[in-house]
Structure formats: C-alpha cells, structure tokens
C-alpha cells in the first residue's frame, strides 16, 4: 500500500461514499448456456480507479463476468453499464476496455514494440505519437532493451509485462486481467504483484482481475468479490474479507481457519457466545444481529489469533483445552494441531520470533488455547 492510501485524510473507499458514481454496474445479470447458469442474477458496482478482484474456484463464473465486460459474451438477462452506458450493443473493438489474456496472446509474428503499437495503429494514431507511446509503455514495464525482440525471444516474465504494456497502451478506462500471473513461478509472481499495484496507481486505470489465488487477490486488490456458482458471496476489502467473513464459505475459502460448531447460548451487543463441547468453556466472538440465541452457529477463528499456553491462562475468557497432536515447523512460524478431549482438531499458529526456540511445547503435551472476544466471528450455518 502506498503512503497516500495509509494517510487518514484520503482513504480510497468510493464504495462507502453514497455520492460516488460507479464506473461499472452489473444490474441483475444472468448468463446461461442451455441449462447451465454461469452467472446467476448478479448485481455489483465497481468504482473508477479500483483494483477489483474476482476470486473463486474454477467454474464459479468469474471469467464469464470478465468476458462480458470485454464484449466477448453478452448477458442473457440484465444490463451491464460502463460509465452509465449500456454496453450490450457495443462490440469488443469499440469498447474503452482492454484485456490482458491468461495466455498473454502476444502476436508471435510481431516484435515487442509492434505488439504494443497494435492497438494504437488501429486507432489511426499519428506515427510520432505511436513511437512516443511505445517508449512510454516500454519504460513503464522496464523493457526498453527488448523493443525489437519477438515474443519467443523473451522470458515468461517479460512476456507477461509486454502483455500488460500492450493492454495499457490505449489508455483504457478499464483493464481486465485474466489470471495474469498464473504462468509465473512463485517468486516472480510476488514481485510482479507489487509491480502491478505500482502500475495501477501510476496510470490510475481501473483494474478488474480474475484469479483463483486468494493470496494474489489479498495482495493486489482494493476490494475482493468472492464468487461461487455464479453468485457473489461477499464483496469487501481484503482485511474485512479475512477478518469479518460473512459466511463459512468465505471464511473457509480465504486462508486457514478453525471452524467450531455449537449452540448459541446468548447474544450481547455485537457479540455471540456458543457452547460447543462437554467440559469446555463457552466461546465468544463478534456476531451480526442475525444470530439468534438457541440456534446452531459456527465460530470461525484464524489459527494465528490463538495463543498457546502450558498452563490454564487466568484472565482470558475464550479458553480451549487439549493436547498437542502435531507440530509443523514452517520456518517463519510453527503450526500446532491441538486435539480436544472430544476429538476436534484445532490449529494454532505461532510466529517463530526467536532464532533458537525454546521447545517447551512438544507432542502429547497438555495445552490451553485462548483468544480474545474480537478474534473470532460467529456465523450462521
């Protein structure tokens, strides 16, 4: 995140502003192929300069949404508006939308510079302006030295950057990125994620990215839409998606989570308490007001929010007792799998802040886990 995003004076959150006009509006969009419904009565607003991620497992409809924005598919029902204008009758070549393809789709018979110039030439831009624009785009993606190479003469990471430069060359209102980093290895992917965010900020273009990689979505996006079976399950900032998932599906899809099922014994302002196992303390987490006492609910709590003790902690309210079943050392952190007397497994993650860890906790040890009342979320079934 940039410094401007961190400064409290200008937090970028047009979705909280009632006055803000969305750039893209999906209004009750449905897309069917025969009996198969790819997109199911979906409505969503995306604002200018957002870095918006569509996240979901394959087949959830995220790519279909993107292809409808690009103009390669038309909705069966409903409307898609870009800048308030219905885009249904506009063919892909007339839309101020460009797309970066998953396979990059670089033209193999053209050089890097000609690939970038391709869209500009279609717009009949004067030659000197095209040359300047190519230069500008090449500097943006740091490929000036490779202008005359053919796509097969550069590496995968460089190809990815050429594809990005080509799709940004026409300065579109909206850039669509279809799994843009899927073909890169992990290290390169992380570097490129930051580069993407940088470029997005520099150009001020609205980015919509399709990905199945939740880490990628968390890193780059200003907001994430978690999708499943043609529906949007939740749209929120990465932090809210992670910390305050609205459903078990979202909690489970993003990151690691402990799901503890129980009966709601009572609710207070913004909190709910569940009793979940014989001989264990009740657990409290934050809750929305759709949680009713007496119903069955699930407490979702992230492993890193749990503390692990060798003796019962005194002043903590949420305490679980059990014994260590497994320890996984991951370098930067260790994951402990704790088994409760009733046989449920709960994960706790502890950062390895010290180089030589005092191994005071080991297999079969009796331990207590605890977390604060705001660490977990109580969710409906």
């Amino acid at each position, binding site marked *: 995140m940039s410094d401007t995003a961190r400064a409290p004076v200008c937090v970028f959150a047009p979705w909280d502003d009632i006055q803000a006009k969305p750039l893209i509006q999906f209004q009750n969009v449905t897309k069917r192929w025969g009996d198969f419904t790819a997109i199911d009565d979906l409505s969503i607003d995306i604002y200018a300069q957002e870095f918006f991620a569509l996240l979901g497992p394959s087949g959830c409809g995220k790519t279909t949404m993107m292809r409808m924005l690009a103009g390669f598919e038309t909705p069966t029902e409903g409307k898609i508006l870009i800048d308030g204008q219905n885009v249904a009758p506009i063919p892909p070549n007339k839309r101020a939308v460009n797309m970066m393809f998953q396979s990059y*789709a670089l033209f193999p*018979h053209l050089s890097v510079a000609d690939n970038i110039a391709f*869209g500009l030439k279609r717009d009949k831009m004067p030659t000197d302006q095209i040359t300047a624009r190519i230069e500008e785009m090449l500097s943006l993606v740091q490929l000036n030295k490779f202008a005359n190479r053919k796509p097969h003469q550069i590496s995968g990471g460089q190809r990815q950057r050429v594809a990005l430069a080509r799709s940004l060359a*026409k300065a579109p209102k909206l850039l669509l990125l279809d799994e843009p980093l899927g073909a890169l290895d992990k290290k390169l992917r992380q570097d490129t994620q930051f580069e993407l965010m940088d470029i997005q900020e520099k150009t001020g273009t609205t980015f919509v990215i399709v990905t199945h990689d939740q880490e990628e979505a968390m890193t780059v996006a200003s907001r994430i839409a978690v999708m499943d079976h043609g529906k949007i399950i939740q749209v929120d900032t990465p932090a809210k998606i992670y910390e305050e998932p609205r459903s078990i599906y979202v909690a489970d899809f993003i990151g690691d989570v402990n799901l503890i099922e129980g009966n709601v014994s009572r609710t207070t302002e913004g909190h709910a308490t569940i009793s979940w196992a014989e001989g264990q303390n009740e657990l409290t987490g934050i809750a929305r007001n759709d949680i009713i006492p007496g119903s069955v609910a699930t407490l979702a709590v992230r492993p890193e929010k749990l503390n692990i003790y060798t003796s019962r902690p005194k002043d903590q309210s949420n305490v679980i007792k059990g014994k260590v079943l497994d320890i996984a050392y991951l370098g930067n952190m260790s994951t402990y799998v704790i088994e409760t007397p009733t046989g449920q497994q709960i994960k706790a993650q502890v950062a390895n802040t010290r180089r030589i860890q005092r191994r005071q906790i080991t297999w079969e040890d009796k331990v207590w886990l605890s977390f604060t009342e705001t660490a977990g979320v109580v969710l409906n079934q």
Partner: protein
Amino acid sequence: MRRLSWFNTVSLSLGFAFLYLPMIILITYSFNEGKLVTVWSGFSTKWYGELFRNEAFLNAAWVTLKVAVMSSSIATVLGTMAAYVMVRAGRFPGRTLFSGMIYAPLVMPEVITGLSLLLLFIAIGLDRGVLTIVLAHTTFSMCFVSVVVSSRLVTFDQSLEEAALDLGCTGFEAFRLVTLPIIMPAVVSGWLLAFTLSLDDLVIASFTSGPSSTTLPIKIFSAVRLGVSPEINALSTIMIGLVTVGVIGASLTSKRSIAKRQKDEQEAIQ
C-alpha cells in the same frame, strides 16, 4: 557413426534401386547422342537444345504453368475460407454435410470428377480452354488446401484473435493482421500442394482441355504413344531437377529456421 550390417546395406540398396533406377535410366538416356532411347551411342546435350526449339512443348509448358498458378491461387483462397468456417463457426445447421462435401473430392475417382465437369461445361456452353482447366483444377485441389489449413487452425490459440478484437480490430482486420500471418506457412504449403497437383494432373485436364490448351502432361502422354523420344527424356530430367532443388531448398530453409528459433529461445531463458 555406426556401420551398417550387410543385411541393412542390402535392404537399403534394394529400396533405393526400386525407387530411383527408373529415373537414373531416364536421366542417363536424356544425354544420349542417338535417336534410339534404349541404345547408348555417346554423350550429348543436343536433345535439350532440340526441346527448347520445340514450340509445341514450350506452349504446353506455358499453359501448364499458367493453369497451375491460377488454379492453386484460387483454391488457396477458397480452401482457406472453407477451413476457417469449418474450424471457427462452431455448430451450425448442415455443418456435417458441408464438411463432408468439402472433403469428398479427396476420395472421388478423378475420372468421375473430370467427366462431371466436362458435362457441366458442355451444359452451360463454356468453351473448353485454359479457363475450364483452371476451374476444374481449383475444384479438386481446394479440398487439399482446406485440409492443410484447417489442421493448422485447430491448434491456433483463439485468444490471439480475441486480443486483436479487444485492441480495436474488426473481424476481418483480426483475420488479415493476426490470423493470416500466423497460419501463413500452412497456407503456403496448401498452395504448393495445389500447385503440384495441378502440374501433374493428366486425367482431369484431358477431360476439360480444349484444342488450344494442351497441358504438359497431356502433351507428354500423347507424344509417348507415338514412341518415346529423347526430347521427352530431357524434359523429364529438367522437371526432376526442379523438384529436387525445390525439396532440398525447402528442407534447408525449415532446418535453418528451426535452429534459429531454438537458439532464440535458449537466449530468452538466460
């Protein structure tokens, strides 16, 4: 290098003898001094000179070349269009019938193709000549082009065309600026295939040619019926030479481009 065993040596020699002995004899006798094709009477190149003074042969060669260039060019355009529709248009009513009919001439006996075309030309009152041969050759060679081009299009990454549309191309521009340059090698080999098929076609040409438009194969065939002359040996030798040069040239070019590509890719990784 491994030495071949005597068995392999014999098999190889037999195979090559079977393939090339007839041609070697033909080439040898094209340099024969005497008029008799089967009796060696000394080295000479006079039959080549004779050949180039023979108006009838030169005319026939010129007609053949014209027909081959025109028919293969038209066949390439039509065949590429047909292949594009077959691969890209997806399912449409009558698709199976259409694709079956495109490929039917591949298995149709030439005599039948020739005869039916002859009947058509008579029915519509078209005088037989260069035009009718061109039309006939286009008909039967188009399906070969279509087969070659469609096999390339099947492996063509469709997102390239979508990218072109996305960047502002109309459908036709996307085809002209992106698809066509990329499938060009297949289109060229389709053209070459159609060209060769037209060059050596005898059956269909003899049905559809007129008195003023004899092609080389027809000319050779009718000349041989009056007895093989050393001139025809000379002509055949020239044709063999051209084909040999063409094949060697094509294989060298493709070998070089593969080597270059591999080198480029190696450099890109580093």
